[in-house]
């Protein structure tokens, strides 16, 4: 996720990565990784990077940083489908979750 400054928005971090920020730390499934107390609405990107094994890169000219996905395992860390929300051609947001109860074939394609 793109970062301006040193911190990430907690809610955005949770949405994007599937980690839940709880009093005991960052939790996903049965795993909880301790974080410094008092994170609140924003979290220190460098600490997240170090504790969760996420790369943190910087772009000098723009002053932007980017926190990448956690390294060391596989792209899928759980079989629970990510809570994906994307727009259609008209900009109307669609929630993958709204298809619970049906089988879904998710097809990735591209114009290029």
């Amino acid at each position, binding site marked *: 996720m793109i970062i301006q400054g040193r911190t990430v928005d907690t809610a955005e971090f949770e949405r994007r990565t599937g980690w839940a920020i709880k009093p005991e730390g960052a939790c996903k499934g049965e795993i909880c990784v301790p974080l410094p107390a008092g994170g609140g609405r924003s979290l220190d990107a460098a600490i997240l990077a170090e504790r969760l094994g996420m*790369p943190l890169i910087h772009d000098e000219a723009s002053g932007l940083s*980017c926190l990448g996905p956690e390294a060391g395992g596989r792209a*899928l860390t759980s079989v629970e489908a990510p809570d994906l929300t994307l727009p259609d051609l008209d900009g109307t947001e*669609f929630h993958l979750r709204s298809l619970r109860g*049906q*089988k879904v074939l998710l*097809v990735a*394609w591209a*114009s290029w």
Partner: protein
Amino acid sequence: MDLPGWQALRTELHPQGLEIVTVALDTGGAEVTRRWIEAASPEHPSLIDQAHLVDELFGITNVPSSVWIDEQGRIVRPPEPAFPTRPPYLKREVPPDASPRVAALIAAVNEIKIDPDTYVAALRDWVAHGAASRFALAPDDVLERSCPRPIEEATAAAHFELGQHLHRNGQTEAAVPHFRAAHRLQPDNWTYKRQAWTFADPSQGPTEVYEGNWLADVQKIGAANYYPPLKM
């Protein structure tokens, strides 16, 4: 493009409980995808992923790739090459007046191996039998078959995201070093390469911006290995 083929399968299988969701992995967004989507007139959700979120979340490294998700929202097959039918562009004669480059491109494309019949038969089996289908994988198999993510590939994802962000904000030159870093760190990610090459040359041919191009990189690995073999 395979969108009409997916719509045809949707017409067949939706009454049996399958929904298809197509997602365009396209930094160019609606502007570059509209004509393909409108031509296919999809009745299913047809979404646009301008930030390539789906690539990162599911571990997709080339298109077309598909994922199966069951009624409870659990992934039962991770991304794998998926064609609804055999596209006509995979078997073309080389025109007599073709340039050497075009002839080499057609030859490479003709060598690409895909297996739509096996894939679609498995999909129909899953739709009919659900969890009892032998093609619906156990959770451990799903995770095991998903894309490995060592630190190089996680870092490539960060560079690709930052490159796209800069590109979408009009900083196309500043984006290039990040795209190049992504290509260097994860050379077998065709999505990173093809998306960025397209910005420098819509036909993904040689440019001064990137070391690789579609034909040279495909020839390097052998076009027959462009898509991993289906392991149904």
